[in-house]
């Protein structure tokens, strides 16, 4: 065990933890004031529930040996994960469990933006358990699982074997959540009476800032060490976010004469999403390109998707889905051998890498899209559950209806 690497991974894990409350504020500021607690609670309960799922069986399914498609039950309840580091471990095994736990937590929380302001809360809690188990764990296994058997055989996830570059989870987290968001938005249907204005812009900015901060742990932490790769990941992460934020701001200024904070914050998140798979593969100039692409593409994706009948309330698909796909492909384009430690991208002449990246995208979209649809479809049919809040709950607001609380007391004895 190396104390420096361990130190970095401890705090990186804490930073990734903090992203979920950050998301709670980012999303919470965007909805109407009568639904802010509900929106915040969706993220918060993902921490509570998915963590437990993760240690009971999620980690085992995701990182247990199993086969190329899914892990196994060898680490149920973290059995077999040693408290003490083995000779040669960079970090304690339990720290890797914790780091990955925070990824498992935030992914379903991202989806909640799609069905904000109208989803039944109790059904959501069950959805968390099912989706983490049936969608998140397998896809994580595909991309990141790598185990060596006693006889020396390697058993890796199939996307790992294919050579797909996904440094910090562009497919596993963002494309995955983005496409599940589509499934959810379609099945739950449009809001009765959506508002156009976010209830609290400072919360949106606060949330975006916390997400950005946490993303340093997310991306630079994905080096699983305090090393050159972590330093590069740190720098490119911030640059892509800056460039995407600026791009979004400038486009909206050109179109409307105004530069909204919500747009700029959303642009920053789009940049962070796009750099996620690329953070271990590109340099600063690549990051500027990826950030610029993310700002541009996601801006127009939002516009286009608003013209469809789908009510993806907080633009999860446009930002995380499309942004994630752009990032995955762009990783194939801008990857540099010196940084990936072996794999070249298109700009260094390796056309094939773009194809490999596309396979990873398509596989994730297909699997996550279909299984998410099935899960939600079944939850909708189960008597006593169902996806959609009652009309009156939706009108009154889910804060009062589901949580018996109001985000702020207005008048009188205050």
């Amino acid at each position, binding site marked *: 065990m190396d104390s420096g690497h361990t130190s970095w991974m401890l705090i990186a894990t804490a930073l990734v933890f903090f992203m979920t409350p950050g998301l709670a504020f980012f999303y919470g500021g965007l909805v109407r004031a009568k639904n802010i607690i509900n929106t915040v609670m969706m993220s918060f309960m993902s921490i509570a529930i998915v963590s437990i799922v993760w240690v009971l069986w999620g980690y085992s399914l995701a990182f247990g040996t199993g086969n190329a498609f899914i892990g196994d039950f060898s680490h149920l309840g973290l059995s077999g994960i040693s408290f003490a580091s083995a000779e040669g471990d960079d970090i304690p095994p339990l720290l890797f469990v914790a780091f990955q736990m925070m990824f498992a937590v935030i992914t379903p929380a991202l989806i909640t933006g799609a069905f904000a302001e109208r989803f039944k809360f109790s059904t959501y809690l069950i959805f968390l358990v099912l989706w983490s188990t049936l969608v998140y764990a397998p896809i994580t296994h595909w991309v990141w699982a790598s185990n060596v058997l006693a006889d020396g055989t390697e058993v890796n996830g199939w996307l790992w074997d294919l050579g797909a570059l996904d440094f910090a989870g562009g497919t596993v987290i963002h494309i995955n959540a983005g496409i599940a968001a589509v499934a959810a938005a379609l099945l739950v249907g449009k809001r009765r009476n959506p508002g156009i204005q976010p209830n609290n812009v400072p919360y949106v900015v606060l949330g975006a800032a916390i997400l950005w901060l946490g993303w340093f742990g997310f991306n630079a932490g994905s080096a699983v060490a305090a090393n050159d790769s972590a330093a590069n990941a740190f720098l490119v992460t911030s640059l892509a976010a800056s460039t995407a934020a600026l791009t979004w701001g400038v486009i909206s200024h050109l179109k409307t004469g105004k530069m909204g904070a919500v747009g700029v914050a959303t642009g920053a998140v789009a940049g962070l999403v796009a750099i996620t798979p690329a953070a271990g593969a590109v340099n600063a100039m690549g990051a500027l390109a990826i950030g610029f692409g993310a700002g541009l593409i996601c801006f127009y994706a939002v516009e286009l998707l608003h013209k469809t009948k789908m009510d993806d309330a907080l633009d999860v698909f446009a930002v995380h889905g499309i942004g994630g796909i752009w990032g995955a492909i762009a990783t194939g384009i801008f990857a540099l051998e010196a940084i990936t430690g072996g794999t070249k991208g298109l700009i260094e002449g390796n056309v094939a890498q773009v194809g490999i990246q596309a396979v990873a995208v398509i596989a994730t979209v297909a699997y996550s899209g279909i299984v998410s649809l099935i899960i939600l479809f079944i939850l909708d049919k189960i008597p006593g559950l169902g996806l959609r809040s009652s009309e*009156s709950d939706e009108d009154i607001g889910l804060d009062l209806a589901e949580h*018996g*609380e*109001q985000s702020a007391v*207005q*008048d009188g004895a205050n």
Partner: protein
Amino acid sequence: MLKIEAIFRPERVGAVTDSLLAAGVTGFHYQNVTGQGQQKGVEVVTGRGGQTTRSASSKTLLVTVVSDDKKDAVVEAIVSASRTGEIGDGKIFVTEISDTIRVRTGEAGESAI
């Protein structure tokens, strides 16, 4: 000139204002208030898990000043847009007012409405 004050559920404000404009109202203002009537308030959980009933709910109070002849149309516009049939739908109060002045021009009376 009449001042029409309507209290209704906050989620109806968009419907009510659309309906008022359709009925030819030229101006109005609204704000959120806390109200209590037959609907004895809403259930809230206390901070830490228990339950209690808060004896008042959020309502929107909208005010519009109109000429006397528009009274029925305006009342009808508001009622149709805000009625759910459940307790807590709200009330409309009508008051006579004696004068209206438009700040921008200083004109007074009916034409200032």
